[in-house]
Protein backbone atom coordinates (compact mmCIF):
# COMPACT_ATOMS: atom_id res chain seq x y z
CA UNK A 1 0.00 0.00 0.00
CA UNK A 2 2.95 2.30 -0.24
CA UNK A 3 2.14 4.94 -2.77
CA UNK A 4 4.23 4.61 -5.87
CA UNK A 5 6.38 7.66 -6.21
CA UNK A 6 7.22 8.84 -9.68
CA UNK A 7 7.71 12.56 -9.19
CA UNK A 8 7.01 14.29 -12.47
CA UNK A 9 8.47 17.47 -10.97
CA UNK A 10 9.92 18.82 -7.80
CA UNK A 11 8.29 17.41 -4.70
CA UNK A 12 6.32 19.89 -2.61
CA UNK A 13 7.94 18.39 0.45
CA UNK A 14 10.78 15.94 0.62
CA UNK A 15 11.93 14.59 3.97
CA UNK A 16 14.93 12.29 4.01
CA UNK A 17 16.11 10.33 7.05
CA UNK A 18 15.04 12.92 9.60
CA UNK A 19 16.08 12.16 13.15
CA UNK A 20 15.75 14.37 16.16
CA UNK A 21 16.11 13.64 19.85
CA UNK A 22 15.13 15.84 22.75
CA UNK A 23 17.21 14.42 25.56
CA UNK A 24 16.17 10.80 25.96
CA UNK A 25 13.10 11.25 23.81
CA UNK A 26 13.47 10.38 20.16
CA UNK A 27 10.97 12.68 18.43
CA UNK A 28 11.87 11.60 14.89
CA UNK A 29 13.47 8.30 14.04
CA UNK A 30 14.55 8.25 10.42
CA UNK A 31 11.49 9.86 8.85
CA UNK A 32 11.25 9.58 5.05
CA UNK A 33 8.40 11.26 3.26
CA UNK A 34 7.66 12.73 -0.12
CA UNK A 35 4.60 14.82 -0.84
CA UNK A 36 3.76 15.86 -4.39
CA UNK A 37 2.43 19.28 -5.38
CA UNK A 38 -1.32 19.53 -5.03
CA UNK A 39 -1.68 16.63 -2.61
CA UNK A 40 -3.84 16.94 0.46
CA UNK A 41 -2.25 14.86 3.15
CA UNK A 42 -3.28 14.06 6.70
CA UNK A 43 -0.66 13.30 9.31
CA UNK A 44 -2.24 11.08 11.88
CA UNK A 45 -0.76 9.82 15.08
CA UNK A 46 -0.88 9.86 18.85
CA UNK A 47 0.73 12.60 20.90
CA UNK A 48 4.48 12.35 20.70
CA UNK A 49 4.39 10.67 17.30
CA UNK A 50 6.56 13.45 15.88
CA UNK A 51 3.96 15.23 13.74
CA UNK A 52 4.62 18.68 15.17
CA UNK A 53 8.40 18.24 15.12
CA UNK A 54 8.24 17.20 11.47
CA UNK A 55 6.12 20.25 10.62
CA UNK A 56 8.47 22.55 12.52
CA UNK A 57 11.33 21.23 10.43
CA UNK A 58 9.40 21.95 7.23
CA UNK A 59 9.37 25.66 8.13
CA UNK A 60 12.81 25.83 9.70
CA UNK A 61 11.66 26.30 13.30
CA UNK A 62 13.40 23.08 14.27
CA UNK A 63 16.51 21.51 12.81
CA UNK A 64 17.09 17.77 12.45
CA UNK A 65 20.01 16.00 14.11
CA UNK A 66 20.41 14.17 10.81
CA UNK A 67 18.61 14.15 7.49
CA UNK A 68 17.34 16.89 5.23
CA UNK A 69 14.15 18.72 4.32
CA UNK A 70 13.43 20.25 0.94
CA UNK A 71 10.43 22.43 0.26
CA UNK A 72 9.71 22.80 -3.47
CA UNK A 73 13.37 22.14 -4.08
CA UNK A 74 14.75 24.65 -1.60
CA UNK A 75 15.61 24.66 2.08
CA UNK A 76 12.93 25.41 4.70
CA UNK A 77 14.31 28.78 5.83
CA UNK A 78 14.47 30.09 2.25
CA UNK A 79 11.04 28.64 1.54
CA UNK A 80 9.70 30.50 4.57
CA UNK A 81 11.37 33.79 3.68
CA UNK A 82 10.13 33.64 0.10
CA UNK A 83 6.59 32.72 1.09
CA UNK A 84 6.53 29.28 -0.54
CA UNK A 85 5.30 27.67 2.64
CA UNK A 86 2.84 28.92 5.25
CA UNK A 87 1.91 27.33 8.49
CA UNK A 88 -0.73 27.29 11.16
CA UNK A 89 1.27 26.53 14.28
CA UNK A 90 -0.20 24.31 16.93
CA UNK A 91 -1.54 26.63 19.65
CA UNK A 92 0.50 29.32 17.88
CA UNK A 93 1.05 32.31 20.14
CA UNK A 94 -0.81 35.50 19.28
CA UNK A 95 -0.62 38.98 20.81
CA UNK A 96 -3.39 38.91 23.43
CA UNK A 97 -3.44 42.68 24.04
CA UNK A 98 -3.77 43.61 20.39
CA UNK A 99 -6.70 43.63 18.02
CA UNK A 100 -6.84 40.96 15.33
CA UNK A 101 -6.44 43.57 12.60
CA UNK A 102 -3.35 45.11 14.19
CA UNK A 103 -1.58 41.79 14.56
CA UNK A 104 -2.49 40.58 11.07
CA UNK A 105 -1.23 43.81 9.53
CA UNK A 106 2.11 43.32 11.28
CA UNK A 107 2.49 39.76 10.01
CA UNK A 108 1.13 40.74 6.59
CA UNK A 109 3.78 43.44 6.21
CA UNK A 110 6.57 40.87 6.64
CA UNK A 111 5.43 38.48 3.90
CA UNK A 112 7.38 38.08 0.69
CA UNK A 113 4.33 37.95 -1.58
CA UNK A 114 1.29 38.56 0.60
CA UNK A 115 -2.22 37.57 -0.35
CA UNK A 116 -4.38 40.72 -0.39
CA UNK A 117 -5.72 41.20 3.14
CA UNK A 118 -9.34 41.28 1.93
CA UNK A 119 -8.87 37.82 0.39
CA UNK A 120 -7.35 36.50 3.61
CA UNK A 121 -10.25 37.87 5.62
CA UNK A 122 -12.76 36.31 3.24
CA UNK A 123 -11.04 32.93 2.97
CA UNK A 124 -10.55 32.56 6.72
CA UNK A 125 -13.98 34.09 7.42
CA UNK A 126 -12.73 36.50 10.07
CA UNK A 127 -14.42 39.75 9.01
CA UNK A 128 -16.38 39.75 12.27
CA UNK A 129 -13.21 39.25 14.33
CA UNK A 130 -10.97 41.95 12.85
CA UNK A 131 -11.83 44.61 15.44
CA UNK A 132 -11.81 42.21 18.40
CA UNK A 133 -9.11 42.06 21.03
CA UNK A 134 -7.26 38.78 20.57
CA UNK A 135 -7.28 37.92 24.27
CA UNK A 136 -11.09 37.95 24.20
CA UNK A 137 -11.49 35.43 21.37
CA UNK A 138 -12.84 31.93 21.96
CA UNK A 139 -10.65 28.95 21.16
CA UNK A 140 -12.39 28.34 17.85
CA UNK A 141 -12.20 32.00 16.86
CA UNK A 142 -8.49 32.08 17.66
CA UNK A 143 -8.06 29.06 15.39
CA UNK A 144 -9.73 30.98 12.54
CA UNK A 145 -7.24 33.79 13.13
CA UNK A 146 -4.36 31.29 13.06
CA UNK A 147 -5.71 29.94 9.78
CA UNK A 148 -5.68 33.50 8.44
CA UNK A 149 -2.05 33.85 9.52
CA UNK A 150 -1.18 30.74 7.53
CA UNK A 151 -2.81 32.25 4.42
CA UNK A 152 -1.15 35.69 4.66
CA UNK A 153 1.84 34.69 2.57
CA UNK A 154 -0.28 33.13 -0.20
CA UNK A 155 1.78 29.94 0.22
CA UNK A 156 1.94 27.05 -2.24
CA UNK A 157 2.46 24.62 0.60
CA UNK A 158 0.16 25.03 3.58
CA UNK A 159 0.83 23.26 6.88
CA UNK A 160 -1.94 23.03 9.46
CA UNK A 161 -1.03 21.58 12.84
CA UNK A 162 -4.19 20.38 14.58
CA UNK A 163 -6.30 23.07 12.91
CA UNK A 164 -9.65 22.23 14.47
CA UNK A 165 -8.59 22.04 18.11
CA UNK A 166 -11.01 24.02 20.25
CA UNK A 167 -13.75 24.11 17.62
CA UNK A 168 -17.23 22.75 18.11
CA UNK A 169 -18.78 20.55 15.44
CA UNK A 170 -20.35 23.42 13.54
CA UNK A 171 -17.15 25.42 13.50
CA UNK A 172 -15.22 22.35 12.48
CA UNK A 173 -17.52 21.72 9.52
CA UNK A 174 -17.27 25.37 8.47
CA UNK A 175 -13.51 25.23 8.78
CA UNK A 176 -13.18 22.26 6.46
CA UNK A 177 -15.51 23.96 4.00
CA UNK A 178 -13.13 26.92 3.87
CA UNK A 179 -10.13 24.63 3.73
CA UNK A 180 -11.56 22.87 0.67
CA UNK A 181 -11.92 26.23 -1.10
CA UNK A 182 -8.31 27.03 -0.33
CA UNK A 183 -7.28 23.57 -1.51
CA UNK A 184 -9.14 24.00 -4.78
CA UNK A 185 -6.54 26.54 -5.87
CA UNK A 186 -4.03 23.70 -6.24
CA UNK A 187 -2.08 24.28 -3.04
CA UNK A 188 -0.37 21.42 -1.32
CA UNK A 189 -1.92 20.95 2.10
CA UNK A 190 -0.59 18.91 4.98
CA UNK A 191 -2.55 18.77 8.20
CA UNK A 192 -2.02 17.01 11.47
CA UNK A 193 -5.11 15.86 13.28
CA UNK A 194 -6.42 13.67 16.07
CA UNK A 195 -9.83 13.51 14.42
CA UNK A 196 -9.59 10.35 12.42
CA UNK A 197 -12.75 10.90 10.43
CA UNK A 198 -11.39 14.28 9.37
CA UNK A 199 -8.31 12.64 7.93
CA UNK A 200 -10.37 10.04 6.10
CA UNK A 201 -12.78 12.62 4.72
CA UNK A 202 -10.54 15.56 3.90
CA UNK A 203 -7.27 14.03 2.81
CA UNK A 204 -6.49 12.13 -0.36
CA UNK A 205 -3.62 10.51 1.47
CA UNK A 206 -3.32 9.53 5.10
CA UNK A 207 0.05 9.05 6.74
CA UNK A 208 0.07 7.40 10.13
CA UNK A 209 3.01 8.30 12.33
CA UNK A 210 4.08 6.71 15.55
CA UNK A 211 7.19 7.25 17.62
CA UNK A 212 8.93 9.31 14.98
CA UNK A 213 8.31 6.98 12.05
CA UNK A 214 5.72 6.41 9.38
CA UNK A 215 3.80 3.24 10.13
CA UNK A 216 1.24 3.47 7.34
CA UNK A 217 0.80 5.53 4.21
CA UNK A 218 -2.17 5.28 1.90
CA UNK A 219 -5.70 6.44 1.19
CA UNK A 220 -8.21 6.47 4.03
CA UNK A 221 -9.82 3.21 2.79
CA UNK A 222 -6.39 1.64 2.40
CA UNK A 223 -5.49 2.53 5.95
CA UNK A 224 -8.76 1.00 7.08
CA UNK A 225 -7.94 -2.15 5.13
CA UNK A 226 -4.88 -2.62 7.29
CA UNK A 227 -7.17 -4.19 9.86
CA UNK A 228 -7.65 -6.93 7.28
CA UNK A 229 -11.18 -6.64 6.17
CA UNK A 230 -14.35 -6.77 8.22
CA UNK A 231 -15.54 -7.23 11.72
CA UNK A 232 -18.23 -9.84 12.31
CA UNK A 233 -20.27 -9.74 15.49
CA UNK A 234 -22.85 -12.28 16.54
CA UNK A 235 -24.55 -13.95 19.49
CA UNK A 236 -25.21 -17.58 20.24
CA UNK A 237 -21.84 -19.22 19.56
CA UNK A 238 -18.66 -19.50 21.62
CA UNK A 239 -15.59 -17.54 20.44
CA UNK A 240 -13.51 -20.67 19.84
CA UNK A 241 -16.00 -22.02 17.34
CA UNK A 242 -16.30 -18.70 15.57
CA UNK A 243 -12.54 -18.45 15.39
CA UNK A 244 -12.44 -21.83 13.67
CA UNK A 245 -14.52 -20.58 10.73
CA UNK A 246 -12.71 -20.00 7.46
CA UNK A 247 -11.74 -16.37 6.82
CA UNK A 248 -11.74 -15.48 10.51
CA UNK A 249 -8.47 -14.23 11.87
CA UNK A 250 -9.44 -14.19 15.52
CA UNK A 251 -12.56 -14.06 17.64
CA UNK A 252 -13.17 -12.98 21.18
CA UNK A 253 -15.87 -11.92 23.57
CA UNK A 254 -16.93 -8.34 22.93
CA UNK A 255 -15.57 -6.03 25.61
CA UNK A 256 -18.85 -4.16 25.93
CA UNK A 257 -21.22 -7.11 25.78
CA UNK A 258 -20.23 -10.45 27.29
CA UNK A 259 -22.85 -12.39 25.29
CA UNK A 260 -21.59 -11.11 21.96
CA UNK A 261 -18.65 -12.48 20.01
CA UNK A 262 -16.52 -10.17 17.94
CA UNK A 263 -14.49 -11.67 15.08
CA UNK A 264 -11.92 -9.95 12.90
CA UNK A 265 -12.15 -11.41 9.39
CA UNK A 266 -9.78 -11.54 6.47
CA UNK A 267 -12.66 -12.78 4.32
CA UNK A 268 -16.05 -12.08 5.82
CA UNK A 269 -17.94 -13.64 2.86
CA UNK A 270 -16.29 -17.00 3.44
CA UNK A 271 -16.91 -16.74 7.16
CA UNK A 272 -20.60 -15.99 6.66
CA UNK A 273 -21.04 -18.78 4.14
CA UNK A 274 -19.47 -21.28 6.52
CA UNK A 275 -21.44 -19.92 9.42
CA UNK A 276 -24.87 -20.33 7.82
CA UNK A 277 -24.17 -23.66 6.13
CA UNK A 278 -22.44 -25.25 9.10
CA UNK A 279 -23.58 -26.56 12.50
CA UNK A 280 -23.71 -23.13 14.09
CA UNK A 281 -26.43 -21.91 11.70
CA UNK A 282 -29.29 -22.78 14.04
CA UNK A 283 -27.75 -21.16 17.10
CA UNK A 284 -26.37 -17.81 15.96
CA UNK A 285 -28.43 -14.66 15.80
CA UNK A 286 -27.90 -10.89 15.63
CA UNK A 287 -25.21 -11.37 13.00
CA UNK A 288 -23.63 -8.12 11.93
CA UNK A 289 -20.78 -7.34 9.54
CA UNK A 290 -19.13 -3.94 9.77
CA UNK A 291 -16.23 -2.19 8.12
CA UNK A 292 -13.89 -0.84 10.74
CA UNK A 293 -13.29 2.88 10.40
CA UNK A 294 -10.00 4.62 10.37
CA UNK A 295 -10.13 4.79 14.13
CA UNK A 296 -9.86 1.04 14.39
CA UNK A 297 -7.09 0.95 11.81
CA UNK A 298 -5.29 3.62 13.71
CA UNK A 299 -5.50 1.78 16.99
CA UNK A 300 -4.24 -1.43 15.49
CA UNK A 301 -1.42 0.16 13.56
CA UNK A 302 -0.11 1.99 16.57
CA UNK A 303 -0.77 -0.72 19.12
CA UNK A 304 2.67 -1.09 20.61
CA UNK A 305 1.91 -4.35 22.41
CA UNK A 306 1.26 -6.17 19.16
CA UNK A 307 4.07 -4.84 17.09
CA UNK A 308 6.29 -7.83 17.70
CA UNK A 309 3.71 -10.06 16.03
CA UNK A 310 3.76 -8.05 12.89
Amino acid at each position, binding site marked *: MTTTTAPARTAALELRGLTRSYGQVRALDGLDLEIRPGEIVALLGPNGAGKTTAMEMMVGLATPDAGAVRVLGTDPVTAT*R*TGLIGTM*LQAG*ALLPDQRVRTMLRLLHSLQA*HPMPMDDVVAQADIADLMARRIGALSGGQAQRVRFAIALLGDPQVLLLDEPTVGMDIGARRAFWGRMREVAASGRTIVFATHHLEEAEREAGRVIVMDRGRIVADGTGPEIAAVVAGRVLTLRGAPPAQVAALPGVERAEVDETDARRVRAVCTDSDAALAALFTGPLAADVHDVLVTAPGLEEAFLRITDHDEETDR
Partner: protein
Amino acid sequence: MTIAQPAVRTAAAPSAATRTVRYAAHTTAMTATNIAFMVFTIALPVGMYLLFSMMFGDQAEGQARGMIMINMAAYGGLGAAVTAGTQIQEDQRNGFLRQLVVAGLSPRSFLAGSVLAASAVIVPALLAVGLVGLVTGVEASLPDFLATLAVLWLGLLPTILIGLVLGMVLRGAAAMAGGVVTMMAMAIFGGLWMPLEMFPSWMQSLGHALPTYWISDLGRWALYGGDVPFTGLAVIGAWTLVLGLLCLVSMSRAVGLQRR
Protein backbone atom coordinates in the same frame (compact mmCIF):
# COMPACT_ATOMS: atom_id res chain seq x y z
CA MET B 1 -6.44 16.40 -12.14
CA THR B 2 -4.56 19.40 -13.39
CA ILE B 3 -2.71 21.28 -10.75
CA ALA B 4 -2.62 25.03 -10.95
CA GLN B 5 0.88 26.17 -11.61
CA PRO B 6 2.28 28.47 -8.97
CA ALA B 7 1.61 32.05 -9.84
CA VAL B 8 4.59 33.73 -11.40
CA ARG B 9 5.91 36.15 -8.84
CA THR B 10 7.68 39.06 -10.40
CA ALA B 11 7.80 41.48 -7.50
CA ALA B 12 10.90 41.03 -5.39
CA ALA B 13 10.48 39.92 -1.82
CA PRO B 14 11.17 42.66 0.73
CA SER B 15 14.76 42.72 1.93
CA ALA B 16 15.78 41.93 5.48
CA ALA B 17 16.23 45.65 6.13
CA THR B 18 12.74 46.45 4.83
CA ARG B 19 11.26 43.75 7.02
CA THR B 20 13.18 45.07 10.01
CA VAL B 21 11.81 48.56 9.50
CA ARG B 22 8.27 47.31 8.95
CA TYR B 23 8.40 45.20 12.08
CA ALA B 24 9.79 48.18 14.02
CA ALA B 25 7.09 50.50 12.69
CA HIS B 26 4.24 48.16 13.63
CA THR B 27 5.73 47.48 17.06
CA THR B 28 6.21 51.19 17.67
CA ALA B 29 2.58 51.82 16.76
CA MET B 30 1.42 49.05 19.08
CA THR B 31 3.43 50.45 21.99
CA ALA B 32 2.49 54.05 21.27
CA THR B 33 -1.21 53.17 21.37
CA ASN B 34 -0.77 51.49 24.73
CA ILE B 35 -2.30 54.23 26.86
CA ALA B 36 -0.99 52.90 30.17
CA PHE B 37 2.53 52.75 28.80
CA MET B 38 2.47 56.27 27.42
CA VAL B 39 0.88 57.82 30.53
CA PHE B 40 3.30 56.03 32.80
CA THR B 41 6.40 56.91 30.81
CA ILE B 42 5.41 60.55 30.25
CA ALA B 43 3.39 61.64 33.29
CA LEU B 44 5.78 60.31 35.93
CA PRO B 45 8.97 62.08 34.77
CA VAL B 46 7.08 65.26 33.89
CA GLY B 47 5.46 65.29 37.33
CA MET B 48 8.78 64.70 39.03
CA TYR B 49 10.41 67.42 36.96
CA LEU B 50 7.74 69.88 38.04
CA LEU B 51 8.15 68.89 41.70
CA PHE B 52 11.94 69.04 41.76
CA SER B 53 12.24 72.19 39.66
CA MET B 54 9.79 73.93 41.99
CA MET B 55 11.91 72.91 44.99
CA PHE B 56 15.45 73.35 43.67
CA GLY B 57 15.10 74.87 40.20
CA ASP B 58 16.46 78.31 41.06
CA GLN B 59 19.74 77.03 42.52
CA ALA B 60 23.00 77.59 40.62
CA GLU B 61 21.51 80.59 38.82
CA GLY B 62 18.78 78.51 37.29
CA GLN B 63 21.13 75.85 35.87
CA ALA B 64 19.68 73.45 38.42
CA ARG B 65 16.41 73.62 36.56
CA GLY B 66 18.14 72.62 33.34
CA MET B 67 19.88 69.73 35.09
CA ILE B 68 16.60 68.56 36.59
CA MET B 69 15.08 68.66 33.11
CA ILE B 70 17.96 66.60 31.74
CA ASN B 71 17.81 64.08 34.57
CA MET B 72 14.05 63.66 34.45
CA ALA B 73 14.08 63.35 30.67
CA ALA B 74 16.78 60.70 31.05
CA TYR B 75 14.72 59.01 33.75
CA GLY B 76 11.62 59.04 31.53
CA GLY B 77 13.59 57.69 28.61
CA LEU B 78 15.15 55.05 30.83
CA GLY B 79 11.75 53.90 32.05
CA ALA B 80 10.36 53.78 28.52
CA ALA B 81 13.44 51.99 27.19
CA VAL B 82 13.52 49.28 29.85
CA THR B 83 9.75 48.76 29.83
CA ALA B 84 9.53 48.65 26.03
CA GLY B 85 12.48 46.31 25.74
CA THR B 86 11.08 43.97 28.36
CA GLN B 87 7.57 44.09 26.91
CA ILE B 88 8.66 43.45 23.33
CA GLN B 89 10.80 40.56 24.42
CA GLU B 90 8.03 39.21 26.62
CA ASP B 91 5.63 38.95 23.67
CA GLN B 92 8.21 36.87 21.89
CA ARG B 93 8.81 34.68 24.86
CA ASN B 94 5.15 33.70 24.64
CA GLY B 95 6.05 32.24 21.27
CA PHE B 96 5.00 35.05 18.96
CA LEU B 97 8.54 35.18 17.61
CA ARG B 98 7.75 31.86 15.94
CA GLN B 99 4.93 33.54 14.03
CA LEU B 100 7.25 36.37 13.02
CA VAL B 101 9.93 33.96 11.82
CA VAL B 102 7.43 31.88 9.86
CA ALA B 103 6.19 35.13 8.30
CA GLY B 104 9.74 35.78 7.05
CA LEU B 105 11.44 37.88 9.73
CA SER B 106 14.88 36.59 10.74
CA PRO B 107 15.73 36.51 14.47
CA ARG B 108 18.44 39.09 13.84
CA SER B 109 16.00 41.42 12.08
CA PHE B 110 13.66 40.93 15.01
CA LEU B 111 16.40 42.08 17.37
CA ALA B 112 17.32 45.11 15.28
CA GLY B 113 13.66 46.00 14.83
CA SER B 114 13.06 45.75 18.56
CA VAL B 115 15.89 48.20 19.25
CA LEU B 116 14.49 50.56 16.63
CA ALA B 117 11.00 50.37 18.07
CA ALA B 118 12.19 50.95 21.63
CA SER B 119 14.29 53.89 20.41
CA ALA B 120 11.17 55.39 18.91
CA VAL B 121 8.93 54.99 21.95
CA ILE B 122 11.37 56.77 24.28
CA VAL B 123 11.14 59.95 22.20
CA PRO B 124 7.78 61.15 23.61
CA ALA B 125 9.08 61.02 27.20
CA LEU B 126 12.22 62.98 26.26
CA LEU B 127 10.20 65.54 24.30
CA ALA B 128 7.55 65.94 26.98
CA VAL B 129 9.99 66.65 29.81
CA GLY B 130 12.06 68.88 27.54
CA LEU B 131 9.11 70.96 26.38
CA VAL B 132 7.72 71.31 29.89
CA GLY B 133 11.22 72.40 30.91
CA LEU B 134 11.33 75.11 28.24
CA VAL B 135 7.90 76.34 29.21
CA THR B 136 8.78 76.49 32.91
CA GLY B 137 11.96 78.50 32.60
CA VAL B 138 14.86 76.39 31.41
CA GLU B 139 16.98 78.75 29.37
CA ALA B 140 18.44 77.23 26.25
CA SER B 141 18.83 78.10 22.60
CA LEU B 142 16.89 75.87 20.23
CA PRO B 143 20.04 74.17 18.80
CA ASP B 144 21.37 73.49 22.32
CA PHE B 145 17.98 72.19 23.40
CA LEU B 146 17.69 69.86 20.41
CA ALA B 147 21.29 68.74 20.78
CA THR B 148 20.62 67.90 24.44
CA LEU B 149 17.61 65.76 23.57
CA ALA B 150 19.54 64.07 20.76
CA VAL B 151 22.46 63.26 23.07
CA LEU B 152 20.11 61.84 25.69
CA TRP B 153 18.33 59.79 23.05
CA LEU B 154 21.55 58.26 21.72
CA GLY B 155 22.95 57.73 25.21
CA LEU B 156 19.91 55.67 26.17
CA LEU B 157 20.80 52.89 23.70
CA PRO B 158 22.36 50.61 26.35
CA THR B 159 19.26 50.94 28.55
CA ILE B 160 17.15 49.63 25.65
CA LEU B 161 19.47 46.64 25.41
CA ILE B 162 19.13 46.12 29.18
CA GLY B 163 15.38 45.84 28.70
CA LEU B 164 15.79 43.33 25.88
CA VAL B 165 18.26 41.22 27.85
CA LEU B 166 16.03 41.27 30.94
CA GLY B 167 13.14 40.10 28.82
CA MET B 168 15.25 37.27 27.44
CA VAL B 169 16.60 36.14 30.81
CA LEU B 170 13.56 36.58 33.05
CA ARG B 171 10.02 35.35 32.56
CA GLY B 172 6.63 37.01 32.89
CA ALA B 173 6.11 38.91 36.13
CA ALA B 174 9.79 38.47 37.01
CA ALA B 175 10.78 40.27 33.81
CA MET B 176 8.50 43.22 34.66
CA ALA B 177 9.70 43.34 38.28
CA GLY B 178 13.29 43.00 37.16
CA GLY B 179 12.73 45.88 34.78
CA VAL B 180 11.38 48.14 37.52
CA VAL B 181 14.17 47.27 39.97
CA THR B 182 16.86 47.78 37.32
CA MET B 183 15.32 51.06 36.25
CA MET B 184 15.14 52.36 39.84
CA ALA B 185 18.68 51.27 40.63
CA MET B 186 20.04 52.86 37.48
CA ALA B 187 18.15 56.08 38.17
CA ILE B 188 19.17 56.36 41.81
CA PHE B 189 22.79 55.20 41.54
CA GLY B 190 23.21 57.12 38.31
CA GLY B 191 22.29 60.30 40.20
CA LEU B 192 19.16 61.09 38.20
CA TRP B 193 16.98 61.75 41.24
CA MET B 194 19.53 63.23 43.63
CA PRO B 195 23.02 64.51 42.84
CA LEU B 196 25.54 61.71 43.22
CA GLU B 197 27.65 63.98 45.46
CA MET B 198 25.08 63.49 48.23
CA PHE B 199 25.88 59.75 48.39
CA PRO B 200 28.71 57.96 50.24
CA SER B 201 31.83 57.51 48.16
CA TRP B 202 31.32 53.80 47.41
CA MET B 203 27.94 54.61 45.91
CA GLN B 204 29.54 57.36 43.87
CA SER B 205 32.08 54.91 42.48
CA LEU B 206 29.24 52.57 41.56
CA GLY B 207 27.39 55.43 39.94
CA HIS B 208 30.38 56.34 37.80
CA ALA B 209 30.26 52.88 36.27
CA LEU B 210 26.61 53.23 35.22
CA PRO B 211 25.51 54.54 31.82
CA THR B 212 22.77 56.64 33.46
CA TYR B 213 25.27 58.86 35.26
CA TRP B 214 27.04 59.58 32.01
CA ILE B 215 23.84 60.06 30.03
CA SER B 216 23.03 62.87 32.43
CA ASP B 217 26.58 64.20 32.16
CA LEU B 218 26.42 64.15 28.36
CA GLY B 219 23.15 66.08 28.56
CA ARG B 220 24.77 68.66 30.81
CA TRP B 221 27.64 68.97 28.36
CA ALA B 222 25.27 69.47 25.43
CA LEU B 223 23.23 72.10 27.28
CA TYR B 224 25.89 74.00 29.21
CA GLY B 225 29.15 73.16 27.43
CA GLY B 226 32.50 72.21 28.94
CA ASP B 227 34.93 69.41 28.15
CA VAL B 228 33.66 66.51 26.09
CA PRO B 229 33.03 63.72 28.61
CA PHE B 230 35.12 61.05 26.91
CA THR B 231 34.94 58.80 29.97
CA GLY B 232 31.19 58.89 29.64
CA LEU B 233 31.32 57.94 25.96
CA ALA B 234 33.64 55.07 26.83
CA VAL B 235 31.39 53.79 29.64
CA ILE B 236 28.25 54.00 27.51
CA GLY B 237 30.09 52.41 24.59
CA ALA B 238 31.28 49.53 26.77
CA TRP B 239 27.78 48.87 28.14
CA THR B 240 26.36 48.95 24.61
CA LEU B 241 28.97 46.54 23.33
CA VAL B 242 28.59 44.01 26.14
CA LEU B 243 24.79 44.13 26.13
CA GLY B 244 24.69 43.95 22.34
CA LEU B 245 26.80 40.80 22.41
CA LEU B 246 24.59 39.36 25.15
CA CYS B 247 21.53 39.98 22.96
CA LEU B 248 23.12 38.29 19.96
CA VAL B 249 24.21 35.28 21.99
CA SER B 250 20.78 34.89 23.58
CA MET B 251 19.19 35.27 20.17
CA SER B 252 21.40 32.65 18.55
CA ARG B 253 20.15 30.28 21.23
CA ALA B 254 16.83 31.12 19.60
CA VAL B 255 14.98 32.37 22.65
CA GLY B 256 11.29 32.17 21.99
CA LEU B 257 11.70 29.80 19.07
CA GLN B 258 11.43 26.66 21.15
CA ARG B 259 8.06 25.27 21.96
CA ARG B 260 6.91 26.31 25.39
